[in-house]
């Protein structure tokens, strides 16, 4: 790819870093005005945290165009997180489904999911702002573990808010966070899942904002978070695009990723949004879209404002937010990042869904065909692929699917649901 030397917004173009780190593409376009992606986004927050958001926006804007910051970030991505992650051609699965499937292997990063990319960037920003404490929310525990990891590395105090329901179903990750020195705060308000963990993290931040950075784990929340998290995750899509071109000699026909808040999907889509590839986000259909027990905010949500952003949310006729449901804690969220809402509205990305049962099918299918155990979140994307191969996805199509995390954290939960026979 050829890069111009000066961007249209006047910032000098950062040269890709070679040797000392992971190659980073130039920064992508930012939101417009006060954090708008089309009609979505914004900064709908209590006045108390506005100053901190303005500071974060300034720091990020400067840092993301600073050669020194980018060099440090790319070096961490390589030497600490283990990037670039490979892309794996799945010959057995491809043969089974009649399509050609490449997996972007975020499961192979340090801590086992894409969440590490974002937290390393935000930890660098935290240091840059002179703050010594971080707080985070977590659903499946992947973002909590990643934040606790970065906090240990950078010597930051760390507190993670986690729904009490999720503390129970993700016990292993709770233990890992505590091992890493983080305090885990079980959240019992509301539905005691990811939505409520974000509520309590925000309530904490309203009190602690002067010395604490809120490390949000997805492309949700008030401006500038959806932009920052997408930019720190775009390495997934930028790497995958170049790797896919090397393997396929072309861009893939389909780019597929699971969507809760949507950070792995947004990072992936950012690398392909300028290509011809069809972008597919797979949401959690839970017990089925008609059951009302799901997490399909794009498919079934309506515009609203929650957690600081205008986006699509599951809500009742009075504007009260509904509880989501998914077998996977990471997709158990009644909203979606504002840039996804904008991509859906513009028709640039399409949003499908897979049920709990289809996710379990995907979990098993990838394990037995490729020897790769996926996390339950990307298992939804695998399940959708298996369902739609030969349908929505014509035979012979090429597909890049982001495997956002590994399935170790889910082994215990799934072992209670999947009967493997012969007493296994």
């Amino acid at each position, binding site marked *: 790819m050829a890069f111009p030397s000066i961007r249209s917004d006047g910032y000098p173009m950062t040269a890709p870093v070679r040797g000392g780190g992971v190659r980073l593409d130039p920064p992508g376009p930012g939101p417009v005005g006060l954090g708008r992606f089309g009609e979505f986004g914004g900064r709908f927050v*209590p006045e108390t945290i506005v100053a901190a958001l303005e500071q974060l926006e300034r720091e990020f804007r400067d840092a993301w165009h600073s050669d020194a910051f980018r060099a440090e970030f790319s070096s961490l991505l390589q030497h600490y997180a283990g990037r670039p992650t490979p892309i794996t051609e799945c010959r057995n699965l491809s043969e089974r489904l009649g399509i050609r499937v490449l997996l972007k292997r975020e499961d192979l990063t340090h801590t086992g999911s894409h969440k590490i990319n974002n937290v390393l960037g935000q930890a660098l920003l935290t240091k840059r702002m002179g703050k010594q404490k971080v707080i985070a929310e977590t659903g499946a525990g992947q973002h909590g573990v990643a934040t606790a990891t970065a906090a240990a590395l950078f010597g930051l105090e760390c507190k993670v808010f986690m729904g009490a329901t999720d503390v129970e179903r993700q016990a292993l990750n709770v233990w890992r966070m505590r091992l890493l020195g983080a305090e885990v705060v079980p959240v019992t308000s509301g539905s005691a899942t990811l939505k409520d963990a974000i509520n309590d993290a925000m*309530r904490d931040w*309203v009190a602690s904002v002067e010395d604490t950075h809120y490390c949000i784990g997805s492309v949700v929340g008030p401006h500038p978070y959806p932009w920052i998290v997408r930019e720190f995750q775009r390495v997934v899509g930028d790497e995958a695009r170049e790797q896919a071109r090397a393997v396929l000699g072309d861009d893939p026909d389909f780019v597929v990723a699971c969507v809760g808040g949507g950070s792995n999907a947004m990072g992936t889509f950012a690398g392909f949004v300028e290509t011809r590839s069809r972008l597919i986000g797979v949401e959690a259909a839970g017990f089925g879209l008609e059951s009302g027990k799901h997490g399909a905010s794009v498919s079934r949500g309506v515009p609203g404002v929650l957690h600081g952003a205008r986006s699509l949310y599951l809500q009742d006729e009075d504007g009260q937010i509904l509880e989501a449901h998914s077998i996977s804690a990471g997709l158990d969220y009644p909203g979606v990042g504002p840039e996804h809402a904008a991509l859906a509205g513009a028709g640039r990305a399409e949003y499908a869904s897979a049920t709990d049962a289809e996710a379990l099918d995907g979990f098993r299918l990838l394990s037995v065909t490729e020897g790769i155990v996926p996390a339950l979140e990307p298992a939804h994307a695998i399940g959708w692929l298996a369902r739609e191969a030969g349908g929505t996805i014509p035979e012979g199509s090429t597909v890049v699917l982001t495997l956002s995390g590994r399935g170790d954290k889910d082994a215990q939960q799934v072992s209670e649901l999947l009967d493997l026979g012969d007493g296994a």
Partner: protein
Amino acid sequence: MTIEARFRAARAAGRSLLVPYLTGGLGEWRATIEEVAAAGADAIEIGIPFSDPIMDGPVIQESSQRALRSGATPQGIVAELAGVDVDVPIVVMTYYNPVHHMGHRRFADSLAAAGVGGSIVPDLPVDESDPWIEAAEAAGIENILLAAPTTTEARLATICARSRGWIYGIALLGVTGERSTVAEAGLEMGRRLKAATDKPVLLGLGISDGAQAATVAAVADGVIVGSAVVRRQLEGCSPSEIGAFVATLRDGLDTA
């Protein structure tokens, strides 16, 4: 007469202003409004319960959940306010999503039809508030903006210029809830706001009793008391018992 005009007149007469907060839709909330008005409130703030109240501590979270479980809805509460007959202004506190969901104009018109005088939307900061303020003002609703200890001087000026009714100074860093002492940050907030504007300045958050109200009133024109009142609603206090508590706040302010 606007809320701002009433408050300016009361201030000129040497009165410290008192605005108690009640959660709408909870128990005998309408009878409580009448008792609270009679006990010396200058305006009454009615909270419209929301599923995800990120600015609120445990007491108002619990009261909101309880009201929602008992079937309270934003439209139902506003409609019931129409039947409340008190001679002090009613102001609603609502998170932004119910307003957004109903539509700015419909929501503003429904408040006006119910005789509500003002609105407080804690997750709608001044730079996002134009569409709501426009609809509210068209319907004669005074939208009260919040200022925080972290607010910069430049924003403070904008907030004071755009706020109607009064300026709501946040008296601590944190969410709503009773505190054992008044934070120095709250007193500083009052002093900064009084230096920035001649509109009425009321401080809220963390004020639990008459003595604390008096401490705060020394640096501002009045106080808002929420969780200390709502806790009594949750504990099942009768409307007259809650009125008696509000009378102790009034005494604290009057004897200061």
